[in-house]
């Protein structure tokens, strides 16, 4: 009796571990050929490296750098208090450049950069005033202006929605640029704005979207990370409504039936550029701002849902913004 119980336990344990093994991923290919010998690390915020958003995009940028011969790696933060030790992990291990990904990591980068004046850092979406930090920020308002134009030319109800994540400066830039873009086409269009206070709770996005669509909105632009998944979810249960994605080309995830277009934020490009410059010895602390002119923001290359007329208008506005004819306010 007792023995059979033990055996059962043993078998259960084995089955359990085998099942887990099935899920284990292959290890990454070994690093080789360090031509320019730079080591670049990045610390994600709590979203993790497969967040379908800026953390993932940043990691894609570093993977491109890896192909160019650098050594790259990442650490995922489990909570806010992990930021500092995770950054230190790279610093103490002698990595040349350490990225902090996301606005929320600003304080941690500032603290670690001050404690380690001989190490170099990069941060996305926040400005840290230190000589050894490159603060990479985007002109989200410029890209959002363009999708605002798209939304205004697409809407039939003359009601457009904006769903934001947390009410922080960087999201404010999306909102302001978007509203400006809409008004540039037709000032009579109403823009409904709602902040959900979260970047992760898809349920909140679904609820906001449902309310908006019920009230006659037919195009929603979201700048809300994972909350946006709920906006897409609600839209896919209805017909005749659109969502404008954010950060990445979200039609890849959610399909062309609901995704009108996306406001791309090329975090990968920024991370790649800054790290590459660093590898070539051109590291300069300070603020790097990437807008339409620098290919930091924009629409995806393929837009099957947009007519030629809309694309022409978008390109027209894009040119005007790049050559300074139109200055899009950032709202902050």
């Amino acid at each position, binding site marked *: 009796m007792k023995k059979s119980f033990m055996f059962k336990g043993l078998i259960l344990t084995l089955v359990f571990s085998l099942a887990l093994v099935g899920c284990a991923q292959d290890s990454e290919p070994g690093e080789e050929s360090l031509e320019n010998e730079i080591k670049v*690390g990045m610390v994600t915020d709590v979203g993790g490296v497969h967040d379908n958003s800026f953390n993932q995009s940043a990691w894609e940028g570093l993977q491109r750098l890896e192909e160019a011969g650098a050594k790259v790696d990442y650490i995922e933060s489990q909570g806010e208090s992990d930021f500092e030790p995770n950054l230190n992990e790279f610093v103490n291990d002698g990595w040349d450049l350490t990225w902090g990904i996301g606005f929320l990591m600003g304080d941690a980068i500032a603290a670690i950069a001050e404690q380690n004046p001989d190490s170099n850092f990069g941060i996305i979406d926040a400005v840290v005033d230190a000589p050894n930090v490159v603060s990479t920020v985007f002109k989200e308002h410029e890209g959002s202006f363009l999708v605002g134009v798209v939304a205004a030319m697409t809407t039939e109800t003359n009601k457009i929605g904006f769903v934001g994540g947390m009410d922080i400066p960087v999201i404010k830039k999306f909102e302001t640029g978007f509203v400006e873009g809409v008004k540039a086409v037709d000032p009579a269009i109403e823009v409904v704005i709602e902040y959900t206070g979260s970047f992760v709770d898809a349920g909140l996005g679904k609820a906001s979207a449902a309310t908006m669509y019920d009230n006659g909105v037919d195009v929603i632009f979201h700048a809300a990370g994972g909350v946006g998944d709920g906006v897409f979810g609600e839209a896919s249960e209805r017909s005749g409504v659109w969502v404008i994605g954010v950060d990445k080309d979200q039609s890849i995830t959610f399909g062309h039936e609901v995704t009108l277009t996306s406001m791309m934020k090329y975090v990968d490009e920024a991370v790649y550029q800054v790290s590459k410059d660093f590898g070539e010895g051109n590291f300069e602390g300070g603020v790097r701002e990437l807008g339409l002119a620098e290919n930091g923001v924009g629409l995806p290359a393929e837009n099957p849902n947009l007519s030629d007329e809309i694309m022409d208008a978008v390109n027209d506005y894009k040119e005007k913004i790049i050559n300074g004819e139109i200055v899009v306010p950032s709202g902050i």
Partner: protein
Amino acid sequence: MKTLSRWLLKESIIIPLISVFVGLLIGAIIMLFGGYNPVEAYQALFKKAFGNIYGIGETIRTITPLIFTGLAVAFAFRTGLFNIGAEGQFIMGSLAAAYVGIMLDLPAIIHMPLAVIVGGVVGGLWGGIAGYLKASRGVHEVITTIMLNWIALYLSNYLIREYLIEKGQQKSVTLAESSWLSFAFLTDMFNNARIHFGILIALLCAVVFYVILQKMKQGYELRSVGLNPHAAEYAGINVKGNIVKAMVVSGMFAGLGGAVEVLGVTHNVIILPAFQGYGFDGIAVALLGGNTAFGSIVGAFLFGFLSFGATGMKLGAGVPFEIINIVIALVIYFVASRLIFKRLLNALNVNKQEEQ
């Protein structure tokens, strides 16, 4: 020799030990199958947590809040209550301590202790709500504490946004330095690790836990209610009063945890997008520690050291963080299913006796 082996074979000690060992072992097997080197990985784990003075400091920093929430859950459990609300009590404790730290301007000798105490009191009151509802209305504490967690989360976010916010940020303004539990000489000594004196308060709380439950008449009553409320009532113990008291003390531990985390580490409170998980980890810590004071310290130590050291495995051996979560889960799983090992031990003992 015989007494030593008997002491080592004591169920309360050997079962957690076996669980930890088996957890690490199966974790190693999983790593092997995943193509990682488990020896390298565990070396990196230890190196990160204890390899240098910075690591030691940060490990202690990670352990500190877990001791508090572990004690909170364990205390309630010993009195027959399942406090899932340590998370919310922790949040309310941080908020209250932050409020005192930001709004008041006092000399450090008063400011810091006051912030700690207020944090503990508010956490205790928050736990007391659930205790009162259970005692007076019979509402199960699992339901109320879960709901109070959400209320605490959103109430805290609202109050921070309305009264404490730093402009353009998702966090409060920084606390006055006179309320801090961290000191420059200590952080310098640990090479900038954010260790702080909260660990001493945590250890003190463990002593208080032990003294209340084991050495005081009050503790005897609390434990009696936990073991059998009907028998306790029959013996003339005020069951309802003891339920409220137990939840207040439990909440106080969690609230103190929140307070020292704010005063010692972050020096501000943030608008939380989601729960941080200190309270929920506390449940695991209490379980690992067998709901005792000393056990909670050991449990927090194990939990904190594994989760903090895990990032070392990522760089040191390429092992993803998920693996260490599996190891932690396995350890908890085996502690929870202690019956397996108990029967195993019994079987061994029976065999031995037969041989003799």
